[in-house]
């Protein structure tokens, strides 16, 4: 026992180094595994408020471009309203299945294999995990952690991201993931080789999960090839969103999500 103590005291630098290094290593391994990455992250109060302060200075640089995007979206929405046959009556008592909340991106990242974004809405705004995040052009990611005032988004540019999407033309569905290479291109897998594909086909969300409503645009087919076993396609999807210059996003709240969760819990009991 005495010798053991002596050994530790003699090599205390090495022991400390080994302890800290293995702790950092375990954090790294856990961060590569989506199911367990629930550690301190950028959506906590301190880092969130620092990003908020910095953002309040830099937000003015993009105002012109963001205005343009908002105007374009507005005109597109007005066009659909004007061209609708029946005018929908605005009913304040109407309950919507999906609610949208506008939000700002405080931290964006796209150059790592595992990218996360930080948003300025949190539990105080009734934001919870598994809510979808989109822009006017397409999907961005899924919320995977919240604090009081901030939340963290698992970007579609994250090798752990899995999103259920389908081909708009034929309704065949598959899983959208990312290989970590180019921030413009994601990969769609699980589409069978019988399906007819052509470059430029639109990919939209399938609506089979409670995160995203159906038919939100995702991207278009850039190229496709068969996988090693020659039975499934690997499709490169060019995203409609430019993930480098995101600023304003919408958080989608599914009002049925609690009902669905309750049903699942009921089954388990």
């Amino acid at each position, binding site marked *: 026992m005495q010798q053991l103590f002596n050994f530790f005291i003699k090599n205390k630098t090495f022991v400390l180094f080994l302890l800290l290094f293995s702790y950092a290593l375990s954090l790294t391994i856990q961060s590569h595994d989506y199911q367990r990455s629930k550690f301190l992250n*950028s959506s906590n109060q301190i880092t969130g408020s*620092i990003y908020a302060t910095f953002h309040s200075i830099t937000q003015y640089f993009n105002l012109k471009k963001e205005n343009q995007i908002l105007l374009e979206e507005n005109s597109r929405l007005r066009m659909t309203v004007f061209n609708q046959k029946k005018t929908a009556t605005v009913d304040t008592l109407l309950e919507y299945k999906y609610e949208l909340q506008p939000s700002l991106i405080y931290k964006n990242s796209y150059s790592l294999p595992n990218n996360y974004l930080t948003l300025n809405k949190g539990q105080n705004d009734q934001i919870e995990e598994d809510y979808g995040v989109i822009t006017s052009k397409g999907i961005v990611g899924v919320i995977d952690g919240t604090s009081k005032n901030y939340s963290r988004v698992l970007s579609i540019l994250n090798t752990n991201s899995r999103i259920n999407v389908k081909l708009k033309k034929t309704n065949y569905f598959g899983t959208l993931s990312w290989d970590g290479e180019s921030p413009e291109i994601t990969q769609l897998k699980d589409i069978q080789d019988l399906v007819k594909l052509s470059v430029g086909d639109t990919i939209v969300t399938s609506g089979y999960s409670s995160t995203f409503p159906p038919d939100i645009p995702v991207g278009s087919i850039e190229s496709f090839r068969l996988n090693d076993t020659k039975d499934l396609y690997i499709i490169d999807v060019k995203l409609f969103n430019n993930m480098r210059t995101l600023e304003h996003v919408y958080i989608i709240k599914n009002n049925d999500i609690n009902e669905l969760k309750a049903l699942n819990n009921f089954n388990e009991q």
Partner: protein
Amino acid sequence: MNNNSVLKIILSFISLVLLQVLICSNINFMGEINPYVYVIFVLLYPVINNRLLFIFTSFLLGYTVDIFLDSGGVHAAASVVIAYIRPLILKFSFGSAYDYQSIKFSTVEFSRRLVYFLLLIVIHHLILFSLVIFDETKSVLILQQTLYSSVFTLILCLLFSSLFSRKET
């Protein structure tokens, strides 16, 4: 270590973290090349020090950057390694001056400082990108990213170190 230098270290800790996460990690030069200037904290930490405290502070620095960037523990791991092996590199690049513990980073000749910076930065970045990419089949990509980012970091670190050393004299 007197109070003045402790304060200096704390201030440089905070400002380097902020510089890194708010500006340097958003440069994305040519798409994805970022400098990691916070390593200059480990490079220029006083030579006469409490080694345990030094290793722990370096770990804390890396971990703080990790929390901001949501990267798990990659920066913490890389920083703690270079903090641990720094005496070896010091001895290798400065030779006898290190034995007498009389190194002043502001006065050593440029070539020696370059070697010292280069070695630690390359080791740091190699560990960093191995852990970030975490895929043994992509070793070419790891080496590529290490090379590009190291050059970027090295230039900035040399720039910073000459800026601050001029102030001292």
